[in-house]
């Protein structure tokens, strides 16, 4: 049986893509609570997605 590395890489990509929106969405939510606004969380989620995609390219993309 082979393909263990492929499974791991795929799941790591997934993990990055999950972590980005989670982390920056949470930070945005905190900022929203603090400033009594309602848009930082959305901005944070989008920004986190972008950061996650960037990280995936850096880690796994071909130069």
């Amino acid at each position, binding site marked *: 049986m082979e393909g263990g*590395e492929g499974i*791991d890489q795929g799941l790591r990509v997934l993990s990055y893509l*999950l972590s980005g929106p989670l982390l920056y969405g949470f930070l945005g939510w905190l900022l929203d609570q603090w400033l009594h606004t309602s848009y930082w969380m959305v901005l944070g989620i989008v920004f986190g997605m972008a*950061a996650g995609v960037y*990280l995936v390219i850096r880690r796994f993309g071909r130069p």
Partner: protein
Amino acid sequence: MGLLGLIIPMEGGEEGSHWPPGVHSFDPKPLFPDAGIDWLNTYLLQAVIATILVIVLWLWVSKHQKVVPGFKQWCGEQLYNVVRNGIGRDALGPDYQKFTPYLLALFSFILVNNLFGQFFLSMFPTFSRVGYAYALALLTWLLYNGVGIAKHGLGGYLKMMTMPKGVPWPLYIIIIPLEILSNFIVRPVTLALRLFANLFAGHLVVIVFVVGGTLLLEQSSFLYKIAGGASLLMAYPIFALEIFVGVLQAYIFTVLTAQYVASSLADDH
């Protein structure tokens, strides 16, 4: 009701209170409900039995080794080779021998516990309780971080895990928290949740088919009885699927543990 009655699940047996099936169907049942020791429940018993089974199995298989293997030894070696060659050597390269004992123990322990979900006396997979899955993921977490720190030193390991090459330095402020979250929290947590959720969901489907089928069979309408019988029959293919999922998840958990260790040991990403 004796001890056996508590180990045998209540699927289909009880009326009323078990419909609809849900998270409560997985509540641990204390072995001695009157003794006030709630922690001594069926899940713990299963885990302990599985541990004993795994130890006894490998002691039995490895006893009286011969140069020309008999059937028992051949079967043991085949299973051992799947873990050692297919998982360990495939992922870890020349260092694989050091990690084979852990991988083999992990694989057989998860496998036995998953098959408990289909075994007629237990009927609950141990890892449908999320705490047990977290405990295994914690072990793997300690292993891959410990191995990485031992090889690269604390600073070097953290640098390797959190600072990918080719990123301009201002971006590290954004990237490093993300890497920490991804590598040290999300990856092990998803490792545990994957094992837990597969077994939990699969077993819930079985409960729905069996309990629902029984309930339909008890109705007076003839059509309900037909639907109930069909539902009970459908439980068997689902059981077969559950056996497959149990084996697959044991394999995946072990493969990913090996891969996590391999990525901690890697010189460069």
